[in-house]
């Protein structure tokens, strides 16, 4: 004991962790087998009854091991397609719902057109009615609820190429700096408004006063509808001033920087014939229209129809027209 104590300390190999690691790396077989074999050599084989019991137990254990391995195999095989199936089902769900949304959106648009047409027909009878229709159309155009056309600027944006591994050329999982985010679109839209745009659409989605551009996961949503690269923003405004002003805006300058830095593409061109769809009508859950004062006409343009003699009747059609 006293003689052997210094030796492990001298070579230092028997630090507690090292011993354990060496054991782990060299003695793979359960030491029990060697011990049992020594015991058998010393005491002879166990009595037949015990041997048979042990043999049965070993067979049972082997059986259990086989079943466990088979279950694990089954599970591994069953789980992979299940994940893929779930994914496919979710994707199908999303497709179906967005298709349905598109269909409903289209039908809402046609119905709205029809309502506008019917209203125009119903009000066409007298001059005050015609004036009310004109007012309504103008209001709809301003608020984004009606289709509009006119000259303006067409801004095109597209994501840069995804980051690639410099060695293998495979796409990497690094942060994709060349991707256009919701904030980028917000900046461009704000720059367009600031440059004097009167109506803006993103990939055919008209922006109204309450429109939101935000992101969920990796997707950019405009009014909760996903939009994707390439983005085309159409803005109607003074065709001489709007493109020029937008070109000088901070957002445009920044995007030209991004173009060189991250490979995004960016262009803004004057376009003399832009057509913008209507935005989905916002649902008023709590706000109710207030009936206008009897003496005040709804808007200045309604008064311009030469119907000053009939002022008391003017508010009525526009009030009923605004309610549904």
């Amino acid at each position, binding site marked *: 004991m006293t003689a052997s104590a210094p030796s492990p300390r001298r070579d230092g190999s028997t630090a507690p962790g090292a011993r354990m690691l060496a054991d782990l790396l060299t003695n*793979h077989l359960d030491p029990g*087998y060697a011990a049992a074999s020594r015991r058998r050599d010393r005491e002879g084989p166990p009595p037949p009854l015990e041997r048979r019991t042990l043999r049965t137990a070993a067979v049972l254990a082997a*059986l259990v*091991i*086989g079943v466990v391995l088979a279950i*694990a195999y089954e599970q591994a095989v069953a789980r992979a397609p299940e994940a893929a199936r779930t994914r496919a089902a979710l994707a199908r769900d999303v497709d179906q719902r967005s298709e349905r949304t598109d269909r409903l959106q289209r039908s809402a648009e046609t119905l709205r057109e029809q309502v506008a047409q019917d209203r125009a027909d119903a009000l066409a009878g007298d001059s005050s009615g015609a004036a009310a229709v004109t007012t309504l159309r103008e209001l709809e155009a301003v608020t984004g609820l009606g289709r509009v056309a006119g000259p303006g600027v067409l801004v095109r944006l597209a994501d840069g190429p995804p980051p690639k591994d410099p060695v293998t050329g495979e796409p990497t999982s690094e942060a994709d700096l060349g991707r256009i985010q919701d904030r980028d679109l917000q900046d461009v839209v704000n720059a367009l408004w600031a440059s004097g745009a009167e109506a803006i659409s993103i990939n055919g989605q008209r922006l109204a006063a309450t429109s939101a551009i935000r992101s969920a996961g990796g997707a950019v949503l405009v009014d909760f509808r996903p939009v994707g690269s390439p983005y085309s923003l159409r803005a109607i405004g003074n065709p001489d001033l709007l493109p020029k002003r937008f070109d000088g805006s901070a957002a445009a300058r920044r995007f030209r920087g991004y173009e060189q830095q991250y490979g995004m593409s960016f262009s803004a061109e004057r376009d003399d014939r832009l057509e913008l769809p209507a935005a989905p009508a916002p649902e008023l859950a709590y706000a109710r229209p207030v009936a206008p004062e009897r003496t005040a006409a709804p808007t200045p343009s309604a008064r311009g129809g030469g119907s000053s003699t009939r002022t008391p009747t003017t508010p009525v059609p526009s009030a009923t027209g605004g309610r549904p």
Partner: protein
Amino acid sequence: MIAALALAVGIVLGLVLEPSVPAPLQPYLPIAVVAALDAVFGGIRARLDGIFDDKVFVVSFVSNVLIAALIVFLGDKLGVGGQLSTGVVVVLGIRIFGNAAAIRRHVFHA
């Protein structure tokens, strides 16, 4: 030999009957597989070394599975289940590799 036969029968049984694992036991399945493989390779090697013993085989398998399950269970309760599972897999994996290498030497003499 009978044990090897039983192993094959067990695999066939498992594949044919497709017994379902209760959900609470599912996290232990991978660990049980690794522990079972360790027992199997240990048993085969001991057999080739000529020192196979039924009792050691049974006890090593049962205790391996139980201890591995206990470690994972405790780890889950303590919030380090993943790390402890990794530890179990590493230790048993090294043993499986070592035993497989010994079996290879026995079979191929290389």
